[in-house]
């Protein structure tokens, strides 16, 4: 129901602690970080952007863990396929 896009914080705006410049694939816009800046927002952080607000700081470790899990699931399947191919019972 809500379009949210990951963007990278590229610049804090001096004198305006609620604002930061975010970049999505080379597209930049000032967004409001008032909902997440208690976590200490710094350039290089990634946030989820919705209607000009950062809704959440993206947890890079969790992102990597999710991908690892996904690839793990896939790998198990690939291994089975290879095992199947070797055992020649299809």
């Amino acid at each position, binding site marked *: *129901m809500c379009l949210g896009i990951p963007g990278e914080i590229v610049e804090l705006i001096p004198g305006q602690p609620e604002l930061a410049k975010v970049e*999505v*694939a*080379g597209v*930049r*816009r*000032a967004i409001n970080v008032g909902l997440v800046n208690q976590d200490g927002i710094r350039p290089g952080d990634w946030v989820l952007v*919705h209607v000009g607000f950062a809704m959440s700081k993206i947890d890079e470790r969790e992102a990597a863990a999710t991908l690892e899990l996904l690839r793990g699931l896939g790998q198990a399947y690939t291994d089975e396929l290879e095992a199947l191919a070797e055992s020649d019972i299809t």
Partner: protein
Amino acid sequence: MSDRTVHTAEWAERALAEAAHHEPASREEQVLERIERARRRRPKITEERVTLAHGAGGKASRTLIEAVFVEAFRNPVLQPLDDGATLDLGTGRLVFTTDAYVVSPLFFPGGDIGDLAVNGTVNDLAVCGARPMYLSAAFVLEEGFPLADLRRITASMADAAERAGVKVVTGDTKVVQRGKADGCYVTTAGVGALERPVTLGESQVRPGDAVIVSGPIGEHGITVLIARGDLDIEADLTSDTAPLHDAVAALLDAVPVRMMRDATRGGVATVLNEVARGAGVAVTVDERALPVRPIVSGACELLGLDPLYVACEGRFVAVVDGDHAEAAVTALRRHPVGEGAAVVGRIEPGPPGMVLLNTAFGGTRIVDLLVGDPLPRIC
């Protein structure tokens, strides 16, 4: 809540009464067939006033054109509703076309309303197979419009005309009261000579043909959207406005071409739908093959837009003999405007009238005409 009056929307009840004779919904296939029948019916205008959607190049535009303009002007030359009309004068064939330009802002990164008005008409002639030759230019100016801006626009028109090898040979000027127009509107018409013995058009398209896009899509539309300033977005992006006549000529020399169309309002998706519908074929597109620059994808993701529907002003779609697809791309890539050319899809026999996209994720979906402009969305 009891003090509130309850009524039903009249228009909705009318529409429902019209649909009432349909049998109750049954199997999915039957329902889909019924929908296709409904889609083939002559469009009817339901609105009482013109809305912005009527100018967006999608379904609403098509309805307006067919229900108002074709209805009034019906004739065999108009009927194919191509980018230009092909006129046989006995001594030779001419292509004749016209277009009005109302872009806002008038100046944007990579161009302005002036070169847009020249390139757009040059391109309409080129994709009809003609060598662009002469243009007319008519200006509707708002009282108070800065003369310096007008000079800037005409200078850029002159440059664009020189680049395209055409001459602006006639014109007109009208001034309207302040507030009655948005600065400056330009209308250009153009004629070109159809010197090659080719027949182009949807009727030439057949299954097995390849679909080619001449370069990265969506750059003009996103540039103008950002240049308007309402979205407060910055991006290092310029309009793709450019004359296509050289690249088109090279393509025509290199391979058997069935048809071409420049992908302006409504983007590549709209052109593909016109091909599918006009030729009674299906167009299958491979999402991974579509040339889209990352920055355009990024802007589209952020705004909830689909680059397939975003306007270009220097890109065209060509349908060519499927056996010559690679040669077509090679020929196009020799020209700066065709550097990013790619084979993006194929013509299939059916389902007729449909554009299907094989997604990068490994699925399939329909690419339909939009009703109006693609709108930024938050949902």
